[in-house]
């Protein structure tokens, strides 16, 4: 199924006015406002946030990407363990993967040691977790469709027929 047009637009820019959103989506402003309210109430839209391009060297924050292998449980597969992991405040995202590991976990900490200790003491000791492999993020180039590092130049001339 195709993603709703309005939702698609909101995913690229959630700060447009209802009037602009309506014009882009080909809806009336009333329909647009009602649809957004519907998405918010039903939980299709979980929230809005800014995609920022902070310089990693300037902030006291490290982000890690952790591959987690787990033993699925008879009753609820991967859900139980995923829910346990996502309940940790440090964890930003938990995703079930197809491939050589099961859960992709991203988390942030103030320094490497903090992240390492979290993995060693809390994540890998959870019942059902077979192994973890931790990768630290060094630099982001593109995120959520936005270019974070490096400009994409328009190589076309200024005016052409």
């Amino acid at each position, binding site marked *: 199924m195709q993603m709703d*047009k309005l939702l698609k637009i909101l995913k690229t820019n959630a700060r447009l006015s209802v009037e602009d959103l309506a014009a882009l989506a080909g809806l009336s402003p009333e329909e647009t406002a009602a649809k957004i309210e519907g998405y918010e109430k039903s939980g299709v839209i979980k929230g809005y946030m800014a995609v920022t391009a902070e310089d990693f060297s300037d902030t006291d924050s490290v982000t890690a990407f952790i591959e987690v292998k787990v033993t699925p449980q008879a009753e609820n597969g991967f859900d139980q363990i995923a829910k346990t992991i996502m309940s940790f405040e440090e964890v930003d995202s938990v995703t079930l993967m197809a491939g050589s590991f099961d859960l992709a976990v991203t988390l942030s900490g103030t320094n490497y040691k903090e992240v390492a200790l979290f993995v060693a003491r809390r994540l890998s000791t959870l019942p059902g977790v077979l192994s973890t492999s931790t990768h630290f993020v060094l630099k982001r180039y593109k995120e959520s469709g936005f270019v974070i590092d490096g400009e994409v130049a328009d190589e076309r001339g*200024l*005016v*052409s027929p």
Partner: protein
Amino acid sequence: MINYDSLIAKKCREMKPSGIRKFFDLANAREGIISLGVGEPDFQTPWSVRQAAITSLERGRTKYTANKGLADLRKAISGNIQKRIGVEYEPESQIIVTVGGSEGIDIAIRSLVDPGDEVLIVEPCFVCYSPIVSLSGGVPVPIPTRAEDKFKLTPEALKEKISSRTKLLVLPFPNNPTGGIMTRSDLEKIAEVLEGTDILVLSDEIYSSLTYGEKHVSITQIGNMAERTILVDGFSKAYSMTGWRMGYIAAPEPLTSQMLKIHQYAIMCSPTVSQYAAVEALRSCDEDIVKMREEYDQRRRWLVHALNRIGLDCFEPEGAFYAFPSIKRTGLSSERFCEELLDRYSVAVVPGNAFGETGEGHIRISYAYSINHIMTAVERMEKFVKEKTG
């Protein structure tokens, strides 16, 4: 010292440089310009097409192809035309692969026009028809279209300009710069006028894949019109392949065989790498067209809405990627409007009269830009219009 001027052929010397060129120089001389001035897509050529070109180079396919183009490409073009508009063209004898749609226009006009022949040109339009007609010794006869008619060619306007010397009608729809289109019923009325005459049609359908709402209809689909029509289309706009220079002509064999002679002597064949890329475009990129069209459509809706809001009356364009609002309310000429807008707010748009005198009182705004870019430019235009109409 050689007096070069006296040596240049009269027809070339008298040819006016494109009005766009002049504006290009003005814009280029400045820094920090936000442009809505280009006539080419902003998307990347689909990756599979670029990959096909790389592969063709790796395999060393760097020789001439047949004059009229690779057999595989002509077959694919024929299949694509059949699929889109249901008209059959024989790949072996009725299709020529050209260097962009531009070359197709050139060889079509040059193969048909004798000195004194009149060529009807629907205006406003792309800039090349009239100079090529003049270069052939023909007489360009503009047919003005109007915003009130959604910039369509009407049968009345056509009839008015037909004379005993009329050889060819240039029909450029979907239209650059107006965004106007011709529906089936619009075309049927034109066909009725042409039926029974000896007038041929050069149908420039380079924007055929970019219509919003109504699906594109070609004049070749109407009655017997295909037998008097040279269809020009290509890859530049549909697949965002402007720099690849890939276009084609589809026409009855007695016409292609004549055009092919000019193509043979002037061009030899279209670039081989681009031809392999074009085969891939036709094979695998239908979905890319749909995605690009949806994106253009969003921007189109926003732009038309915004232009009308800021006081530039704009009819709803249904094709290509341009809006062509009226600037009459500001009291400025098209050129003055564009120069002042550039000067004061660093926004580049193209004066409507660059596309024929009928375009005076309008400007062409391209929406082949990201929506954020368009919004920033329109914000500046709004301030300018307010000052002028305040």
